[in-house]
C-alpha cells in the first residue's frame, strides 16, 4: 500500500495505491489521524489506484470522517472503481461520504 500526499490550495489530496486491508489499514490510520488533528478540513482520497478495500479500510475512513465532522471538515472520495463503490453501497457508506468522479470535481 502506497500513500502519497499533496496539498492543493486548501485541499489535502491523498492517493492510495494498492490494497487497503486488515494488514495495511493501520498505516492509513497513522497517516490520516495526525493530519486531521493538525487541523486539515478538506481531505480528498484519490482511489484511482486502489485495488481492494475491506471492512478494516472502511473502519479507518469512518473513524476519520467522525473526527473531521467535529471540526466541520469533509472527506471526498474520488475515482472509485465500480467494485469498490459496491462495497460502500453494501456498507451504507455512500451517503456518508462525498463521492466524485475526478479530483478536479472537488
Amino acid at each position, binding site marked *: 500500500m502506497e500513500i502519497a500526499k499533496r496539498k492543493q490550495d486548501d485541499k489535502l489530496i491523498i492517493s492510495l495505491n494498492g490494497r487497503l*486491508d*486488515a*494488514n495495511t489499514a493501520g498505516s492509513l490510520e497513522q497517516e490520516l489521524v495526525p493530519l486531521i488533528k493538525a487541523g486539515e478540513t478538506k481531505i480528498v482520497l484519490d482511489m484511482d489506484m486502489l485495488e*481492494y478495500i*475491506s*471492512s*478494516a479500510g*472502511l*473502519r479507518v475512513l*469512518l*473513524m476519520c*470522517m*467522525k473526527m473531521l*465532522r467535529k471540526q466541520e471538515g469533509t472527506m471526498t472520495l474520488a475515482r472509485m472503481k*465500480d*467494485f469498490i463503490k459496491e*462495497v460502500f453501497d*453494501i*456498507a*451504507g457508506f455512500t451517503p*456518508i461520504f462525498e463521492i466524485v468522479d475526478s479530483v478536479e470535481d472537488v
Partner: protein
Amino acid sequence: MIKIKIKNNLEELNKLTNIIEGFCAENDIGMKITFQLNLIFEEIITNIVSYGYNDKSSHDIMVELDLKDDLLTCVISDDGISFDPLIVEKPKLDEGVEERKIGGLGIHFVKSMINDISYKRNNGKNILKFTKKINPEA
C-alpha cells in the same frame, strides 16, 4: 478442489489472497468475483484470528474451495472459541456519520456476497460453509 492451511495470524491473508487469485485465474473467474472472494475470506479469517483464540499458541485454519460448474462451495474450519456468524446482528446501515458504529461490517459483507451459508460446531471446531454462484461475466 483445493485445500489451504493457514496459521492464525493476519500476515497469512497475503498467502491466502495469492492462492485465491491463482485459483480464480485458472478457472476464468472474473475480476469482480475474485475481489468479492478475497473480501469474504479476509472478513471471515480476520474475525477468527482477532477473536477466536484466548491463548498465544499457533493454530491451523483450514480453507477448502470446490468449483463445480458455476457453483463455488467453500468451507472454513478453525479450532477457535465457538462463534456463529449467522447470529451476528446486522449493522444499522442508515445511521448518520455520528451514530454509525465502527465495526460490525465484515459479516454483513460476507452475507451480502454469498448465496447460502451454514454454520456448525463439531468436535471443538467451527465449520462455516458457504456457496457462491460464479457468473462468468463478472
